[in-house]
């Protein structure tokens, strides 16, 4: 095996979830990558990033991108939007209500140090009951609901599927557009 094979194997690594027999992406942390590639010492991370730079260029011809999950800092590979569209991977197509609940939970978590009250989601969503939405999101492994109490947190697993920076930028743009419209009125 060469270094690229090891990278490919580690970055696409999954673990099987026994409860639903699904394979879920886990990718690899920088420490795991260094250990498997036998990069040691103070320059280990530099060696790793140099290798990842070259690797990233090589896989770009296959429309693949090397990314880091912002919630748990693990590295993984993503496919281009075209390939994704073909495989229809967005689990919210045809379910705008669940998509809206996820966006609300994520926005609230990002602006409230990570943990939020179910009632605050309910209040903002202005729906009769959002518990089923939350349970569906929990089933998809995108959020955690605390057994005791009424608290919701984001599961780092969501970071593999959502471009969080892109989400914040889009949200900011929408707010800016709205403010400009208000000012014009």
């Amino acid at each position, binding site marked *: 095996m060469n270094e690229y094979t090891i990278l490919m194997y580690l970055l696409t690594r999954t673990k099987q979830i026994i409860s639903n027999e699904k394979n879920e992406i886990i990718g690899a942390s920088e420490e795991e990558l260094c250990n498997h590639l036998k990069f040691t010492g103070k320059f280990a991370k530099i060696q790793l*990033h140099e290798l990842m730079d070259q690797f990233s260029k090589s896989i770009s011809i296959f429309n693949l991108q090397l990314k880091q999950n912002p919630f748990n800092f693990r590295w993984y590979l993503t496919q281009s939007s075209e390939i994704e569209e073909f495989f229809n991977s967005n689990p919210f197509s045809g379910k*705008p209500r669940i*998509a809206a609940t996820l966006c609300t939970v994520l926005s609230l978590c990002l602006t409230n140090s990570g943990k939020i009250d179910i009632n605050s989601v309910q209040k903002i969503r202005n729906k009769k009951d959002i518990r089923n939405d939350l349970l569906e999101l929990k089933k998809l492994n995108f959020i955690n609901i605390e057994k005791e109490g009424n608290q919701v947190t984001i599961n780092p697993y969501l970071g593999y599927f959502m471009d969080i920076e892109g989400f914040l930028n889009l949200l900011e743009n929408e707010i800016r557009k*709205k403010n400009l419209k208000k000012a014009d009125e």
Partner: protein
Amino acid sequence: MSKLISLLERISFLKNQVLLGKKSLLDEDLESLFIEFKDLISESELETSIQIMNDGTIILEKKLEELRDFISIISQKNQILEYLKNSSSDEAFSKILNIIWQSPLLLPHFSLSFLTKSFERLVLNKKSSNLGIFFKDKPNLASPDIRELPEIDKPYKIKMFEYLNSIQPILPTTLEGLLNKNLFIDDYYKYFSYILHLLQLGYLTYNKSSKQFFFSENKNLEENNNE
């Protein structure tokens, strides 16, 4: 290499990664680097120390910039709450998710046993290892007709059309409808390759908006089956 030069290399690497946008400094532990620098600084290596200070200042400036952006997002809390409450329909959020949704590359079947099996089939079980036979004739460099099947044997073609016959009753359907994820790995890839060939040959069509596969009525299946 002195310890100070080694520190300089690490700091300048970090600076480059940050300037290229490949690394965020929000969670980067800069304190330990600066403590290390404070302990190593010496008059004899003044030039290296100045270089480190130079890179360090750029890194600090970037960190402050990132912190400012982060605080700006946090301080927009009320605006975000107001936007979530009043402005958007569920569909608008659905559209946002469509733009920023990505799928990680999963290779659950890229296992060692799968690779070993492929290796045995493709390499070990080859009857001849004499590569010379492949180069007796000049290679044909003419561009291939993309509507033609690439070098496939007749049994493959027959199996492919049998597969098309078997899926016809469930068409139109999505890829998930055609490929059950619980299929045995060999079958999964076999059917997937049939679908790709059938698309290429025009027996199947794919509609991007509905994400469904359709049977092409203008293709004569019987004719091809009997070829």
